[in-house]
């Protein structure tokens, strides 16, 4: 029985910009992240090394932003990257891109870690960047990375300040929507709506997730 493939609109994934030719070498077109992950699922360790070089900065970056602590971030980052190797066969292309799979895993792992570290009585809202989006943390050497960075930044800037604020508090701050609502002193429904509308706008601006 064949799985019913959902029709996927083919749009360039901003997280999957092809590596520049100087890294790959030769005239061959560089492999997409999805192709690399498929090769990884079949045991290709060279493909994994290439995949590592393409995504590890973002994996580490998002974990570091949520967890704050550098040592823990390295530990969780290492776990996630190894898990990608181990469970590559579980990636289901019909559910989304390899980049989404990888970064969703990284973010969730960091969130689970930061929440388990907090006791119930000691739930401070991790207020971060209420007023502005994250700074440019690192000099991005690859032109492609800079381009995708600029594209995401531009799309994030197209959100309303309230949408951006909720997204930043939730995604980077690691707060639940209840914590965000408490911190901002707004109803739960308002936060949920801002998160959802903000992500929809971001999605449509970037042209992902179709």
């Amino acid at each position, binding site marked *: *029985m064949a*799985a019913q493939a959902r029709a996927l609109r083919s749009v360039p994934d901003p*997280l999957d910009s092809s590596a520049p030719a100087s890294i790959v070498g030769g005239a061959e077109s560089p492999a997409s992240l999805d192709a690399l992950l498929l090769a990884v*699922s079949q*045991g290709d*360790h060279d493909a*994994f*090394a290439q995949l590592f070089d393409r995504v590890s*900065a*973002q*994996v*580490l*970056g998002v974990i*570091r932003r949520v967890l704050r602590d550098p040592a823990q971030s*390295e530990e969780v980052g290492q776990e996630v*990257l*190894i898990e990608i*190797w*181990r*469970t590559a*066969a*579980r990636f*289901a292309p019909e559910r*989304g*891109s390899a980049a*989404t799979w*990888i*970064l969703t895993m*990284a*973010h969730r792992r960091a*969130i689970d870690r930061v929440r388990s570290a907090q006791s119930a009585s000691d739930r401070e809202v991790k207020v971060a960047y209420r007023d502005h*989006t994250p700074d440019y*943390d*690192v000099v991005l050497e690859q032109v492609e*990375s800079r381009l995708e*960075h600029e594209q*995401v*930044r531009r799309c*994030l800037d197209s959100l309303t300040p309230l949408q951006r604020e909720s*997204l930043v508090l*939730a*995604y*980077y701050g690691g707060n*639940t*929507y*209840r914590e965000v609502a408490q911190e901002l002193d707004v109803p739960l*429904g308002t*936060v*949920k*709506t801002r*998160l*959802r*509308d903000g*992500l*929809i706008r*971001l*999605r449509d601006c*970037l042209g*992902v*997730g179709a």
Partner: protein
Amino acid sequence: MSVPEIHTFTGAYAVDALSANERESFERHLVDCEPCTIESRSLQAAAAALAALVAAPVSPALRSRVLDETSRASQVPARTPRDRFVHTHWESSRLWMAVAATLTLIATGLGVLAVNADRRADEAERQVAEIAATPGEVDIVSRATRLGGTATLVTTGDETLFAAQGLPLPDINRAYQLWVISPAGATESVAVLQPDPLGRLEHDVRTLAPGESVALTIEPAGGSERPTTMPFVTLTAQA
């Protein structure tokens, strides 16, 4: 979470802003709600883009450690059809339920096919060791399915349990259906099942006669009177 408002959680879910309980509830809901699933996935794609803004340098030491460890680490099996099934007589009357429940069997010197699914491996290994050491009568048959994952049939004197893990979620409006199939090919429905978000399911089966098999097919969501698709896994009880 009340049902009418559950659709409003897709954004919070996509940025992991639900509590553990809420996330679990919501993921159960996703199994039955295709619009929510489609939207959640698309919003997860948008959320993942936020990682691009915070890329951090990776130390060479970390790179070495990861590449080194992965060069030695095993992987969960790829989804190729494999006919590796093993009959084995386990000598235990007690712990087979625990083994089936964790759905993780460890490859041991006794030669049982194993899928090491998660960190509960140590626990499962301990249970397997206990099973092997304790006399009783347990039969375990395990096999990779054509769609990925593993199915297991565990039989004791009194009970038979079918369990599977690593199954893909069925398409919308589809479900898995469990059958008993006689040697002559007559089919008898046992249950219509949905895997949990981790691809696991299990169900009791009546005591099987020699030569009877248990099989899973994909059917419309409400189930069918007779299988409408070929089984993607079949397990035959030890005679």
